[in-house]
């Protein structure tokens, strides 16, 4: 299957690859997927006192679409408030990257990673984790 230009672009020049200090109170980390399934995403956000995501980093083990989905997610997260970030839907990623049906699970994983990072941040800062909808898988 051929990849879309946008997937290729993110894959070739991934944005925001890296690691934030997972022990910092202002950092939320989401680690989703499993090596057995062929994809693992780690997505991290750094949140300031105004609840704005000032930095986002990722590392992904997976196919090109998984890498592109997480790269795009970090790009979208930066500058958003945490509440705004909660509204990012996997289908937005599918649309932006023109993912074929067989790759939709990559976008779902990215959405899961965002929510899981936000929850990690919330719990660290004494907030209740947000109840997540059942995974789409």
């Amino acid at each position, binding site marked *: 299957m051929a990849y879309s230009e946008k997937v*290729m672009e993110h894959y070739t020049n991934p944005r925001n690859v890296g690691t934030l200090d997972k022990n910092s109170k202002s950092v939320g980390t989401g680690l989703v997927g499993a090596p057995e399934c062929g994809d693992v995403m780690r997505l991290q956000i750094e949140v300031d006192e105004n609840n704005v995501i000032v930095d986002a980093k990722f590392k992904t083990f997976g196919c090109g679409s998984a890498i592109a989905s997480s790269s795009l997610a970090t790009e979208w997260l930066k500058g958003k408030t945490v509440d705004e970030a909660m509204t990012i839907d996997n289908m937005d990623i599918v649309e932006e990257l023109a993912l074929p049906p067989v790759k939709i699970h990559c976008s779902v994983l990215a959405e899961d990673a965002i929510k899981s990072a936000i929850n990690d941040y919330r719990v660290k800062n004494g907030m209740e984790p947000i109840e997540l909808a059942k995974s789409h898988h």
Partner: protein
Amino acid sequence: MEFPIYLDNNATTPLDPRVLEAMLPYLTSKFGNAASRNHAFGWVAEEGVDYAREQAAKLIGCSDKEIIFTSGATEADNLGIKGVFEMYQEKGNHIITATTEHKAVLDTCKHLEKLGAKVTYLKVKEDGLIDLAELEAAMTEQTILVTIMYGNNEIGVIQPVKEIAAVAHKYGALFMTDATQAVGKIPVDVNADGIDLMAFSAHKMYGPKGVGVLYVRRKNPRVKVTAQMDGGGHERGMRSGTLNVPGIVGLGKACELCRLEMDEEAKRLSKLRDKLESALIVLEESYVNGNTEHRLPHVSNISFKYVEGEGLMMAMKDLAVSSGSACTSASLEPSYVLKSLGLSDDLAHSSIRFGLGRFTTEEEIDYAIENTKKAVNHLRDLSPLWEMFKEGIDLSKIEWAEH
């Protein structure tokens, strides 16, 4: 050098220009039906087929009467297995095969199970070879057929065919082998190996797609298969249908070239393969899959731990290779062959198969080495698993959210 570099010769091989040249007249002026007995057009076509049959027979050391042309190895596997099951059902209904076989064999066996066959799927050892003692233990009075492949398509391991045949014969069963990856690459002699039926295909040995052979032994013992395609009674009644004359001529020429050039080609390719493999295996956490001693000369299957195969192939975009990983929603399962070797799913997801061929050059291999190294390092920089491994975290202790 032309890009992308083709290193997927286990999937298919390019047509040798000499094969094309032999075929061309049969696509134009020599268009006759080989079964037309009463005019020159038919005779000319038949001559082409006869010569091809002779070449195919010479390559595997049999008589030309034992060559049945089919549309490819898949059809030959189907005809051999289903044909034996149907022909010998009074003798028994038990078939033995292995879990690492090609789907053309496995799915045919599964189909027969629905029709009353009992099938034993032998597990393989860590190196991909079957255990002869296990085979012998599985033999029963009902066993009519043992079908084990010659060389594996994913990892290239060569099964102990001669020994397997001896076990099958000791219990009065027939021995069949899917030799699609082996014929034309290494010497295969049906008499020396004790093979009763054998499937192979032209497009894996620089011939055209859409044509293959089922070898059916005629002496000691005389093997019979029930036709699976009924019609005009072509191919000694075992496979009806107008002969694919240009395809068959191409197959014949491909067989001839392989017979004449195989020895040197195998030496050259194993040298190049070893060069590639030894350069890549120095990368940390890289593992060769399957037995490296009993292996086809042109194949190397390597797992690069902590990177995912499909993602890796994207970074190797100048190389046409294949991976045991399948990252699609239809199948998240990695290669069943690699899993049969006992590889964990993550290692199976990390595998790349390199298949060298007649037209592979040393320059291309040098390029492939550099390209692959760069890609693996790039992907590891992106991999959270690699980072965790480097930090000394035991990945097996993490509770992954399986999805």
